[in-house]
């Protein structure tokens, strides 16, 4: 077996274990997808048949669910995952300008990762911090009252 094939088999085995551990929950597919993504950073095309098999679903059904939800990614994000809130309350205090600053500074658009794999930039609609906007999320960490200078500092801190 090549190294790659070995890695693939190991991942499939692990995905099967994660899925089997959660399958008895009702409507188990979403919890399983969250668990797989938490462990591997993304849901791979190759995971789908494994999940389908464990849950007794068709691959098409699993694919349909994975693609419906914007949280599920088919590639892992960069080392820093930056999400900028673009919803109305944050727009009212300058979110669009902040998003432009981030995009220009990083040289990527929403949904993209910088060439060095350092930062993935995403948009999000509301983080529940609408009185302290503009708001961004770095990983799971929320930051409020973010202006361009503060965003640069947050990114520098996160990169360390």
């Amino acid at each position, binding site marked *: 077996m090549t190294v790659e094939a070995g890695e693939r088999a190991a991942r499939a085995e692990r995905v099967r274990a994660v899925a089997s551990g959660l399958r008895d929950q009702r409507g188990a597919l979403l919890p399983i997808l969250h668990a797989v993504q938490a462990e591997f950073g993304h849901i791979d095309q190759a995971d789908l048949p494994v999940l389908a098999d464990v849950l007794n679903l068709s691959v098409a059904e699993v694919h349909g*669910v994975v693609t419906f939800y914007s949280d599920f990614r088919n590639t892992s994000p960069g080392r820093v995952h930056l999400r900028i809130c673009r919803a*109305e309350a944050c727009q009212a205090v300058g979110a669009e300008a902040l998003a432009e600053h981030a995009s220009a500074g990083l040289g990527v658009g929403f949904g993209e990762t910088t060439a060095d794999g350092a930062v993935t930039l995403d948009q999000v*609609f509301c983080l529940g911090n*609408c009185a302290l906007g503009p708001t961004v999320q770095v990983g799971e960490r929320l930051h409020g*009252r973010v202006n361009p200078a503060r965003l640069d500092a947050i990114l520098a801190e996160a990169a360390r």
Partner: protein
Amino acid sequence: MSERASGSSAQRERAPVQVYVPGDSAARSVGADLMAERLAAVAAAAGRPVQVVRTGSRGMLWLEPLIEVETSAGRVGYGPVAPEDVDGLVAAGLLDGAAHELGVGLVEELPWMRRQQRLTFARVGIVDPRSADDHLAHGGTAGLRAALELSPADVVEQVVESGLRGRGGAGFPTGVKWRTVLGAQADQKFVCCNADEGDSGTFADRMLMEGDPFILIEGMTIAAHAVGATEGYIYIRSEYPDAVATMTAAIETARERRWLGERILGSELTFELHVRVGAGAYICGEETSMLESLEGKRGTVRPKPPIPALAGLFGKPTVVNNVLSLASVPTILTGGAAAYAALGTGRSRGTSVFQLGGNVRRGGIVETAFGITLGELVESFGDGTASGRPVKAVQVGGPLGAYLPADRFDLPMDYEAFAEAGAMLGHGGVVVFDDTADMTAMARFAMEFCAEESCGKCTPCRVGAVRGVETIDRIRRGEDRAANFELLEDLCELMTDGSLCAMGGLTPMPVRSALRHFAKDFGVEAAG
């Protein structure tokens, strides 16, 4: 040394000073964790033992991070406190509640707090959300105990009589919904809490779950007793990791206390509760889409009928209620339906938890009886814009809600009054914009958001929203304006009339209200 200081040295030998710092994610987003660490370190260096309790937030978000110090007179507040302010504050006598330029005095005496009627949010910002004992010490489980003394039908009638209407947006009477579920015959029933809170400008569900998770558990358990359900789910959006963690921990604790599980509080009631996490889809806040998602499927909207009360989760009779609806129920059971119904106006009874956000000087949580005017919220509570510029518009009720100009500040916060004005209360979010806002951009965004978040099931929404964006773009560029205004109006009509759910059906509301009230931005004298 002054007498005051020597008094505090006597205090020093007694218990450590109780200090409260919010652990709410909004407070943490502006540095509460660093500040709390610094406070513990500085107090230790000063030889003053402190016990820092991480509470929820009082909802005075402009004061975050807020420190509250327990004194014989009550809790004295300081905010907003940056880590670098801590040394000076402690030196100035913060731990004795001394005066300081960041001091706000007794927190409960602040006009912002005194002018509210906190029922649903009574404990938020006060208790340690991870402590079951704290919950009990502040009246927790009284609502559930009262409910367990009553028959299910009597609990339902209490909720009907209270006049409580769903806080998730549609405003359907909660007791009437429960009556339907109670009357349905089935081998299993469910209670599902909608904690998807996707509306921009809303954060009350999050703050309640992070600040008083046990009250939500209690409300859901009362619902289970009232309708005969044995299993429940809280569907929390993935954008709220702190709420997920707090709720999950509280459920674990509640199980240990026998507030959940079998024979709850020694009664015959069995109720198991689980947290489920969404995956970044606004439409999953629509109740049938949420149920599909809970079943592990794509979050597409189901046609109604059947209504979820009769055929909901896995086809079983299901209560679906918003966080705030369910968390209001314990108060109704303890204080009585009549007392709750005595608050409010018209057919909007009780209190509502309004949320002030956007370009507002004092943003946060305002829980008051229905009937307060929009202007009182924005001007008296909110104190105008954060930028200091004039208010141009407020959007009430989230991304599907109307944009209203300042000359509609006389509107009372009341479901029917808003409907008459071509607007809606929704989940109670009020987002303020100053005079730099371009309402053509906001109208475009409403269509863009719908295009982005449509579940794709019906054409008027899926395709109409994309065409709406294009059409507004042409209007903004000044192309063939008359024809494009007409096309936009046609699209709005089609979406309103032909969409399966309110996503497509209400997206025209922000668009049309922007056109109607801010015609000048669109370069017309008056429109629609």
